[in-house]
């Protein structure tokens, strides 16, 4: 595994390009949405399209982010961990767009309505909870916080697992009848959790070193 990691580091794409490519790829869903909006390709209910797209991509990106550690452990590649923070921040980015769409275009900042929704609608409660939990992770994603929080940082950032699950249930609870897509995300979450628990953490020392270098 160590050998493979070195090989990928030698022969692969330079780290800075990995970051640039990931950054651009993560912007694609938003670019696609904007393009559809500008070329009149959205449906008769564009707000719904925006809500759907930003919500769906939040979920997909959080699952992709969660896949990075198992990928590292399965392949020994280093790049997954190097990209993890940027992916996580894009989760926060799309979640923020999703939340803003709701607050602005769905509720027009009518705080009484929003509060009632949070209290009365379980799927809104879950979505809001997920976002509230995501916020400290985004705020402490920098290296200074990592140094400051020491081992607590890792524990804090394990919140991403329940956050992803909340996101999946949030989606499951809002669809009317066709639950195929939320169930698919739920299955992916379970597989990732399973991998996380059952894959040997190769050597925990190696992981710690990776994280020090890459995060």
């Amino acid at each position, binding site marked *: 595994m160590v050998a493979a990691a070195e090989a990928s580091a030698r022969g692969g794409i330079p780290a800075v390009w990995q970051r640039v490519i990931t950054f651009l790829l993560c912007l694609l869903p938003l670019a696609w949405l904007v393009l559809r909006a500008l070329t009149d390709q959205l*449906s*008769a*209910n564009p707000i719904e399209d925006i809500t759907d797209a930003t919500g769906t991509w939040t979920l997909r990106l959080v699952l992709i982010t969660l896949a990075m550690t198992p990928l590292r452990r399965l392949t020994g590649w280093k790049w997954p961990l190097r990209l993890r923070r940027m992916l996580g921040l894009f989760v926060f980015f799309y979640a923020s767009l999703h939340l803003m769409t709701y607050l602005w275009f769905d509720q027009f900042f009518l705080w009484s309505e929003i509060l009632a929704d949070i209290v009365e609608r379980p799927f809104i409660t879950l979505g809001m909870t997920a976002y509230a939990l995501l916020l400290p992770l985004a705020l402490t994603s920098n290296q200074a916080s990592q140094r400051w929080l020491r081992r607590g940082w890792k524990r804090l950032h394990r919140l991403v697992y329940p956050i992803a699950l909340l996101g999946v249930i949030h989606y499951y609870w809002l669809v009317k009848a066709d639950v195929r897509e939320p169930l698919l995300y739920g299955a992916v979450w379970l597989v990732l959790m399973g991998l996380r628990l059952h894959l040997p953490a190769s050597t925990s020392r190696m992981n710690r070193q990776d994280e020090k270098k890459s995060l």
Partner: protein
Amino acid sequence: MPNRILPSEITPESVYRQRRRLMQAGLAVFGAGLTGAWARLAEAKVSLPGDIARSRFSTDEDLTPYDDVTTYNNFYEFGTGKGDPAENAHRLQTDPWSVTVEGECARPGTYALEDILKPHALEERIYRLRCVEGWSMVIPWVGFPLGDLIKRLEPTNNAKYVEFQTLHDPEQMPGQRRRILDWPYVEGLRMDEAMHPLTILAVGLYGKVMPNQNGAPIRLVVPWKYGYKSIKSIVKIRFKEQQPVSSWMKAASKEYGFYSNVNPNVDHPRWSQARERRIGEFLKRPTLMFNGYEEEVAGLYRGMDLREHF
């Protein structure tokens, strides 16, 4: 509809001119080859003197554009995405079409669509449509009162309810290949609801033959109920003594009741029904009791607890 006409409800000239153009365009579609019922539909349009002789039940609100009405649909038989019906409904064969009438009536049997339509004069009904999901449209349907057909079929005294069924054919309706709902789609009305003059069977919209994705060739329109009650592509009508169990009641009985009247005060268990987004508008508007048809239909439910009978 209401006797009081709000200034906002008066149609601007540009809008009704556009409407007329659309209707004329619609008429042009009816070529020389049209026969039978469809020719009658064309005749009905010809005899409509512009916008003036619309039904007294029609609203004067701005119409939702034709493109939106025909590309943003919930018709799970063709897929659960809003754009799926427009994409897939071309598979539906609407000619020939027949409707089977069963149950508590003197004239059961299988009727060709032409025979169903023959005696009925078609009229335009501009209705609000409120989806349970929280959006709404204003659609100029072409149809006739369901009650007129029911009278012809001579229901017996045991007929307390009418049940409707959509075509079940996964070859034509690819959405039925997955058991998203318990196919065929079933809906029902109480007899007095079915006989109410607002309740129509529609065979067209915007002066044109009904597009497949909107429920061709014949569909129900019950404007004071959530959209899913207005069952599409009907192949069966059954008169019953027992209350029908609709597909959505089967799928989630706590969320979808038999009545499904639009009611801003009774929320869907998972979301609020207090407001709606009119397609094409940015701000949401308050949802009206019985979708604005309170004056006409509230009497049907006098004394009923609408929270219980949602």
